[in-house]
């Protein structure tokens, strides 16, 4: 007799229209273990977990929970079967208190009063047992993301979850917060909870899990015991070919300063200082990376530099032009000065997803005579140019008439990057170049960025992915709370130091490198 698995999947398939999101998936997760599921974006991990959590119904296949065949038609069934899920984007009502969020759906009676007392007691017990300190009367939107995530975990445990699924749990956390989360998950495991964690970060899989399953293009391609595998093998399984985790690049040969920010500050509508005295120089032929936990002023910096928002004080020197509070430049004028900008969020700012690719490929440069006749757009020219670029940048499918929304994330990103780069700018601001892009395309995009640098362009890279910052940058600036709190050269940088700097946890005397 073997002990039954906490969860066993047999032959799960799910199709969305033409896309086979999950194909004949089988998975066995032993009880009280941490099981990693790893795969590229779009490999079908989230779909699979959504099926287990009853968000979608599988077209085919069976699910056993604790050896019992279980039909999960909706989230309520999943909850009843002891499954809890922490979604990538938290499923919390932001203006509710922690308590209200936790009891939602498990109120324990038609009047709230009845359930609340019992819930308080139970939550206190859970918090103590699993070391999950949260003020249960706080309003969720006032809590930092790390705590909001704990609320999600508590929510699942309160419903009696014995199997906890976490979807990309560390995407929004600092390395320190992530470590804390891992300690919590290990404590949960010791208490007999089975944890399934979905991620595309190899480091986390190796640090945390007992077993790991690899998904690729909707299929489960391998199961490994974590202790018997390594980063290289997993990465290869994920993409199906050998990948480099570092970018091949020579030492930078920086020349003249192209862009320099001098004490740039920016206040938002509420009068809060979002950028605090930011100063740095960017030279031709170098890549400067801005590291930081998302929301510490990186987006605001990109907006100010690209002309989207005017600065509140300070100066920006760019190509002999001095931009101040009185001499402002809008994004179009910045582009004319040869500053290109790949925005962080391609859906919101980089593309019009309802446009066909050839239309999206000229956005921002649409006034250029290359695309404009006297009255009408030169559609033929736009289309043939778009096709040319698509071939050069390996955009798939190379179809200028396809709506941008129908390209995968990586290909959308290539359309945006190609648009900005092909205008031959002097400086390139690039935000989250590989967010939501799969590994094959990441490699490709990274190579192009390095090529640009070697062609003498000045590149400012903003990314929340430390790996990316460390692989690409020649110098790294760290932002915290709207200010640049440190600078390290790429060869001295390691994850731990950067992580501490990102949380502003370093003491002044141990801080390496000069203040920028």
């Amino acid at each position, binding site marked *: 007799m073997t002990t039954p698995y906490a969860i066993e999947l047999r032959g799960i398939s799910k199709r969305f229209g033409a896309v086979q999101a999950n194909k004949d998936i089988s998975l066995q997760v032993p009880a009280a273990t941490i099981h990693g599921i790893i795969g590229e974006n779009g490999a079908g991990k989230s779909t699979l977990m959504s099926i287990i959590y009853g968000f979608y119904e599988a077209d085919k296949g069976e699910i056993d929970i604790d050896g019992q065949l279980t039909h999960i038609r909706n989230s*309520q069934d*999943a909850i009843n079967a002891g499954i809890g899920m922490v979604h990538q984007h938290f*499923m919390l*009502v*932001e203006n509710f208190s922690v308590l209200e969020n936790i009891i*939602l759906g*498990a109120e324990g009676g038609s*009047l*709230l009063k009845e359930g609340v007392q019992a819930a308080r007691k139970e939550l206190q017990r859970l918090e103590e047992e699993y070391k999950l300190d949260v003020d249960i009367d706080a309003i969720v939107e006032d809590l930092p993301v790390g705590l909001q995530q704990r609320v999600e975990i508590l929510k699942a445990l309160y419903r009696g979850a014995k199997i906890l699924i976490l979807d990309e749990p560390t995407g929004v956390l600092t390395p320190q917060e992530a470590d804390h989360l891992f300690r919590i998950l290990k404590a949960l495991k010791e208490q007999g909870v089975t944890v399934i964690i979905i991620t595309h970060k190899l480091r986390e899989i190796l640090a945390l899990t007992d077993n790991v399953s690899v998904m690729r293009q909707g299929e489960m391609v391998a199961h490994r015991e974590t202790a018997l595998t390594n980063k290289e093998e997993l990465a290869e399984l994920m993409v199906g070919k050998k990948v480099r985790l570092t970018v091949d690049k020579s030492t930078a040969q920086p020349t003249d300063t192209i862009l320099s920010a001098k004490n740039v500050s920016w206040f938002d509508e509420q009068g809060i200082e979002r950028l605090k005295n930011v100063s740095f120089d960017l030279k031709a032929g170098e890549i400067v990376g801005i590291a930081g936990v998302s929301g510490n002023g990186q987006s605001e910096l990109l907006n100010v530099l690209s002309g989207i928002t005017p600065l509140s004080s300070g100066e920006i020197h760019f190509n002999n032009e001095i931009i101040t509070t009185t001499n402002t430049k809008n994004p179009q004028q910045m582009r004319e000065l040869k500053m290109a900008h790949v925005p962080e969020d391609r859906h919101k700012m980089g593309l019009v997803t309802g446009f066909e690719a050839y239309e999206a490929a000229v956005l921002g440069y649409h006034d250029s005579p290359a695309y404009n006749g006297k009255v009408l757009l030169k559609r033929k020219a736009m289309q043939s140019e778009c096709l040319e670029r698509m071939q050069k940048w390996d955009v798939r499918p190379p179809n200028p008439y396809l709506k941008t929304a129908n390209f995968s994330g990586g290909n959308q990103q290539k359309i945006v990057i190609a648009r900005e780069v092909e205008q031959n700018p002097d400086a390139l601001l690039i935000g989250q170049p590989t967010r939501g892009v799969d590994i094959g395309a990441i490699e490709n995009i990274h190579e192009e960025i390095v090529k640009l640098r070697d062609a003498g362009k000045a590149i400012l890279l903003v990314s929340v992915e430390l790996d990316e910052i460390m692989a690409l940058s020649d110098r790294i600036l760290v932002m915290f709370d709207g200010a640049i709190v440190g600078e390290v050269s790429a060869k001295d940088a390691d994850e731990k130091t950067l992580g501490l700097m990102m949380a502003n946890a370093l003491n002044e005397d141990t801080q390496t490198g000069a203040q920028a």
Partner: protein
Amino acid sequence: MFESLILILDATLRVSTPLIFAALAGLYAERSGIVDIGLEGKMLGSAFAAAAAATFFGSAWIGLFFGIMASVFLALLHGFACITHRGDHIVSGVAINTIVAGLTVTLGLYWFDQGGQTPSLVGAERFGPITFPFADALADVPVIGLLYSELLSGHSVLVYLAFVLVPVSAWIIYQTRFGLRLRAVGENPHAVDTAGINVAAIRYRAMIICGILCGIAGAYLSTAHNAGFLKDMSAGKGYIALAALIFGKWRPMSVLLACLLFGFLDAVAVRMQGVEVAGIGQVPVQAIEVLPYVLTVLLLAGFIGKAVGPKAVGRPYVKERS
């Protein structure tokens, strides 16, 4: 002076009543995430159905029942468009308003042949005033007589019902499981769905409550406030109720105050008709009637506090495709 104030307040109660019902109706809908610009149409539809049924059956209560049925039907239609088929809430609401405005008159002409009106309601076909004990006896006592006999006593049962429903709604929304889920579904339906609760079911329930309340509002107009249905008799009250809902920041007690304020302005406007004000001359009625809208616009522009509605309002709920 005191007497005319009492008379204005008395009128305020009467004209506020349909606003209170309709604004509460809108409150349930919007708290669940459904924008309901169709309050106006539901009220008008109910006013017609109530008056027609009251004429036919000779009972205001049966009229009320039919009014509610008509309004609930329209609310479910709105729900079907917005919840099941994820249509645009405004388009569906405007469509309902337009259809009802035409349909009531057309049916009225066909059935009653009185230029689109229903026959005048008399006796038990209307909701008559309820006289409180000793109201007649106390009527001549100074101050108390006016307050008790004139202001508090002598309204139809629906007026009192409106004022009872406000605290009841507050209790439902803040103290019950349904209320918690209702508020959650208007803020973040994804959170509700993943908590194992059926989003559509909550929203449909909210629409049924919305329909019932609008139905009472409409029946009040034709069978209590007036004696019969008149073409377009809701006269923008649905929109004023929506303004009151925003002005009251989607909270029952504040919404009540907003309805009373707007009702008061309406009562004053009627009172000021043709009255010479020293130094100004005649104040145009329209100048006062426009105030609710002006106040609401000022509120939304941020001059009077801040109005933040339920976050998911007006957005169809679609499960994310990962």
